[in-house]
């Protein structure tokens, strides 16, 4: 029943997209498909800020219709196809779960350019782009290890996809570089967006004794719970300082704007090519929110790590690293290649959880 309603909603939203886009046909349409609402305070908001930046920079040449709250699954394909039919020259689909839907629609509309965020399936007219979030999570892990009195942090995860597993591992590796005995508890909320459930997960972790919280879900609810219980936490996707002025240590802030402008310019001057982009801190596709609520020496350490990652001196996944069961993964000095990272389906040593398969 719920699915049906969402489908109706998506259809209605798509139709309203038609209407708003019908007014100025001479402008090139660069379209966006969002999984959440543009004001979720996290993931989708970050993409929408990028879209607004794009609109501001190239607003005289383009318009940027968007669809919000498009569910992953079969409905996504319908929504993306409607966008394509409505005359979009380029479509950004901004959730991992839109991958197969984007691939299918891209086949049907060879003249439309597609850009899929965080996926790994590309085509002639389908590029992928992603951010090396794990670089920020490594820094968070280091801060957590310095700030936690118990040496135990809690991680609210969404779905067991490589992206999320990679983040958990990077956090643990960062923490272990400071405190080799650091432990990490993981709770899977099995949702990207449900404030109540995310808050419940936060409470469960705090009741089990963690004194630092980090999240890979989209709302500020966990930050709010952390603030209420008087522990420290990290924000996700957007700066969440408003929800926890005395709680947030830092946040990984996604700054997609520069990428959106670059790709749209390429589209306009005809140099667009399908690429698989994976940018990091040094490219400005992600930034760290101000380091707050921590002593100066911790802040200095975090800034130093950030600089080292930017310069390429430090790669978070550098051996020696063991897998969770203690078997060797990377030899001393060996760096993980991108392919392994993008398909990551195992934990590193120290993560106190069984990975759902």
């Amino acid at each position, binding site marked *: *029943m*719920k699915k*049906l*309603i969402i489908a*109706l*909603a998506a259809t*209605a939203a798509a139709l309203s997209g038609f209407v708003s886009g019908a007014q100025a046909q001479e402008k090139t349409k660069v379209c966006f498909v969002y999984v959440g*609402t543009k*004001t*979720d*305070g996290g993931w989708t908001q970050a993409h929408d800020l990028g879209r607004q930046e794009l609109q501001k920079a190239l607003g005289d040449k383009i318009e940027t219709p968007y669809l919000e*709250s498009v569910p992953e699954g079969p409905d996504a394909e319908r929504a993306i196809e409607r966008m394509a039919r409505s005359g979009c020259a380029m479509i950004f689909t901004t959730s991992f779960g839109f991958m197969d839907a984007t691939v299918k629609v891209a086949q049907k509309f060879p003249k439309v350019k597609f850009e899929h965020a965080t996926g790994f399936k590309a085509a002639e007219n389908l590029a992928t782009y992603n951010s090396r979030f794990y670089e920020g999570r490594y820094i968070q892990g280091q801060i957590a290890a310095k700030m936690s009195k118990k040496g135990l942090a*809690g991680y609210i995860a969404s779905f*067991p996809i490589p992206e999320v597993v990679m983040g958990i591992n990077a956090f643990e590796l960062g923490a272990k570089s400071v405190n080799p005995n650091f432990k990490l*508890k*993981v*709770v*899977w*909320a*099995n*949702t990207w*967006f*449900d*404030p*109540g*459930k995310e*808050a*419940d*997960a936060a*409470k*469960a*972790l705090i*009741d*089990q004794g*963690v004194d630092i919280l980090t999240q890979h879900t989209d*709302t*500020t*609810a966990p930050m*709010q719970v952390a603030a*209420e219980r008087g522990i420290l936490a990290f924000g996700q996707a957007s700066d969440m300082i*408003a*929800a926890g002025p005395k709680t947030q240590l830092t946040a990984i802030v996604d700054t997609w704007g520069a990428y959106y402008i670059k790709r749209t310019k390429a589209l306009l001057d005809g140099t667009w090519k399908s690429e698989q982009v994976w940018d990091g801190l040094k490219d400005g596709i992600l930034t760290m929110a101000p380091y707050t609520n921590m002593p100066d020496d911790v802040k200095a350490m975090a800034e130093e790590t950030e600089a080292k990652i930017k310069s390429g001196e430090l790669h978070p996944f550098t051996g020696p690293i063991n897998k969770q069961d203690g078997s060797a993964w990377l030899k001393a000095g060996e760096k993980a290649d991108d392919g392994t990272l993008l398909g990551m389906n195992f934990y590193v040593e120290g993560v*106190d*959880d*069984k990975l*759902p*398969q």
Partner: protein
Amino acid sequence: MIEAILLTIITAATPLVIAAIGELVTERAGVLNLGVEGMMIMGAVCAFAGSYLTGVPLFGVLAGILGGALFSLLFGFLTLTLVTNQVATGLALTLLGLGLSGQLGESFVGIPGVKLSPIVFPVLSDIPFIGPLLFRQDITFYLSIALVIGVNWFLFRSRTGLKLRAIGDSHGSAHALGINVIRTRYLAVMFGGACAGLAGAQLSLVYTPQWVENMTAGRGWIALALVVFASWRPLRVLIGGYIFGAVGILQLHAQAFGVGIPSQFLSMLPYAVTIVVLIIISHNRRTTLINTPACLGKPFVPDR
């Protein structure tokens, strides 16, 4: 720790119980309102607005109740006066509520809300364990319990409750007896709306004191399902709501504790366990049939 877990369970179960008890009364009067999710989200946004604009969270609760009730009036007008299809109208109400609340709440996004403060009963709240659980809660919890007991009494012990059930079972006969079917149904629909609004207020003022679009995240649908699985009995709604809340919280604790059971399986548990338990307690098909309002969802046009 057990106390902390129980507190979390109470917070999770309260909105489900409140919304479900309201829908139960609506359905007992023979009206199927599938718009619970929409009324709930309207309650949530009105409650946040009321609390934020006046600075008094309690006004937020009132605003939530009013918002839900007024929104349900729209459903009442369409289905009772214009006799539209109840299923379609209810679905439309949910869609409208989700969209409208997003629009209304646009300026409240990202503003940290004020949590509704608890009402502390002197002496009783000092009882170890039970005190903090039962006597140091916010008003929505007390209301949820009062509603279950009150509705149970009203439906099965009062004369008006008997009339309401009569309307739900056979609106033609009730009409022939001189009971005002339409008026009673209007009131029942608005009671359901007010309860859904109160449940929404609990979400945006207690559960997660903030406003985010779609923050009900399907809880209205769960409340609807609870009514059916509780076979339209108020006390079973309470049991079902708490089982659902409890298993949902315990599976998170099980994960954090590291029991090594796949999280997808644990996530499914609240739904599965609630359904199984409610099927067991209502296994007697005869009593279930007696409890099912016979005129549920059927249109009624009074003849002269």
